[in-house]
């Protein structure tokens, strides 16, 4: 059963349309991540769901109810903000309990619920502290606790990890994922970080300029990107893009090589051949492209090599133990199933 349904959601600020018809169904218990560059409308979508902004057109349904005209508090949602929004003048207990202030529960029940949530988040010892006595990660947990305490139908997270340092972010990512597996509520999570999206999501929604570009599992958006935007946005370093022409049985690159890849492109159609750095390695036979190694980036098990080619700089992957030296010429190739073909004009995938 769908727990959250967005139908043709449009948001206009002073005549500027920033969301152009968002359609999405989120299943009960699903972890959905909205990802996209800054300004693409992720926060706006979340704020519409929360009821902090008014919908310009379209409908929002939460747990089977149309909520367009309901106040945030009646929507059965809870939200975690980027800068936590925990109150510096209240103890952790008060902060977590804040979400229950208007709940019709006895005081003892409320206390019990706060203790339960604090237990889940491993914060029982910190309940009497003030936020300025907590580390960044602990503050983040208080913010999550405050959202959890009401057991909402949908959790909304707006870039909750972007104020944390890299190590803590990785740790919190895991914690939130575990928490989701434990409590099982539906989560809509917004981030601009594709790694966060890939690692946490059941399904990813990739947005750009107020449009959804693709909705799919992490594996789908990685292996079958719907267009060049998704292809370059997901995965790091970004996918290499090589312009060429579609030909019988493959794609002809301008430098005279032919990539043996099946696509729905018409003959002679201008296309872009996409290949991820991970899939592009030094080969002996049938190279796609060749060039001179300019920079090495050792990552341990493998080394990224930056190669100066007829197409400009291309990134590829080499063995971590004996990579080609800087200044040497390498021939690069990739397996046919790892090649992606896109329309040169629209960017739409043709594979």
């Amino acid at each position, binding site marked *: 059963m769908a727990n959250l349904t967005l139908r043709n959601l449009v948001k206009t600020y002073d005549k500027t349309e920033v969301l152009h018809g968002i359609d999405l169904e989120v299943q009960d218990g699903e972890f959905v991540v909205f990802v996209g560059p800054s300004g693409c409308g992720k926060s706006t979508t979340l704020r519409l769901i*929360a*009821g*902090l902004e008014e919908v310009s057109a379209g409908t929002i349904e939460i747990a089977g109810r149309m909520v367009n005209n309901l106040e*945030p*508090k009646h929507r059965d*949602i*809870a*939200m975690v*903000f*980027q*800068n936590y*929004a925990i*109150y*510096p*003048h209240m103890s952790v207990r008060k902060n977590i309990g*804040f*979400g229950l*202030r*208007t*709940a019709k529960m006895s005081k003892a029940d409320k206390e019990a619920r706060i203790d339960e949530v604090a237990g889940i988040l491993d914060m029982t010892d910190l309940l009497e502290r003030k936020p*300025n006595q907590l580390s960044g990660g602990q503050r983040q947990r208080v913010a999550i606790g*405050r959202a959890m305490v*009401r057991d909402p139908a949908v959790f909304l997270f707006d870039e909750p990890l972007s104020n944390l340092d890299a190590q803590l972010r990785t740790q919190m990512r895991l914690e939130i994922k575990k928490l989701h597996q434990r409590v099982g509520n539906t989560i809509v999570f917004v981030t601009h970080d594709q790694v966060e999206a890939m690692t946490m999501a059941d399904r990813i929604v990739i947005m750009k300029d107020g449009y959804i570009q693709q909705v799919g599992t992490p594996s789908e958006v990685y292996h079958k990107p719907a267009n060049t935007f998704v292809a370059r946005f997901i995965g790091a370093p970004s996918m290499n893009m090589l312009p060429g022409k579609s030909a019988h049985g493959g794609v002809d690159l301008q430098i005279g090589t032919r990539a043996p890849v099946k696509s729905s492109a018409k003959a002679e159609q201008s296309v872009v051949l996409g290949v991820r750095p991970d899939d592009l390695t030094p080969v002996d036979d049938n190279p796609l492209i060749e060039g001179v190694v300019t920079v090495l980036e050792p990552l341990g098990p493998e080394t990224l090599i930056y190669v100066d080619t007829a197409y400009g700089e291309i990134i590829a992957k080499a063995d971590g133990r004996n990579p080609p030296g800087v200044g040497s010429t390498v021939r690069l190739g990739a397996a046919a199933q790892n090649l992606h073909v896109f329309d040169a004009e629209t960017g739409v995938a043709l594979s």
Partner: protein
Amino acid sequence: MAAVDTIRPTANAVLTTQAPKKPANMGQIIRWLLLFAGGILMVMPIAYMLSTSLKWPHEVYNVNLIPVEPTIENYTYVLEDGRFFGWFINSLIIAIATTISNILFDSLVGYTLCKFRFPGRYIVFIAILSTLMIPTEMLVIPWYLMSQQFGWLDSYWGIMFPGMMTAFGTFLMKQFFETVPDDFIEAARIDGLNELQIWWTVAMPLVKPALAALAIFVFLGNWTAFIWPLIVTNSVEMYTLPVGLSSFGDEADVAWELIMTGAAISTLPTLVVFLIFQRFIIRGVVMAGLKG
């Protein structure tokens, strides 16, 4: 704002004296001298107030700072005079009532202007600000006529009503509420608080330093107010302290030693108020520093 402004120059001064350690000496000496002169200028009136309050009437017009024959006679006289105590209470009631009123209403209006978008918001703000440009002297006649019409002359309400809210306080609070992140307010909204509850439980505690500064300004302003209380009161019992003090003596002979004694006593509550609220201001600045 004001609280922040008083902090900034010192911070700058610290920075500039620390940065170049080269020929500083001459400039530094001049700076010290200027500060010293400024300090003397500030302290002198207070010193003379205390000194005069300890003099006998015949010595009042001597400029010597140390009284020849110090006496506490003036203090016993003023404190035993029933009128003084009455004026003190009047001033206290008025200063406390206006302070509470300003704390509540300036911040309520400031908060609304800061955190809500509504048509005419900017115009309302400008209108409030523009009243800052009108001096009290111009307003006392309309106030007087109004008080007469409503029968407020010679009453507490008559003395207080012009100061129950101030444009300055509203402006101050609006500026301080800008420092309260919108996320805090929206989070509370999602948690189901109504707007009045959000203002009181979330926004107000976060602007305590500003409230403390406002409390000091309003209390001092009303404690020392002179022109309007003088005009609106008729009976000696309704006088405020400054008005009452000025009535010591008669046209021929102003009893300076008594006025100065009353003035010296009347600084005590302002000191108390300052000592109470100043803690909040300093703590607020420290907190702001930690956050940034």
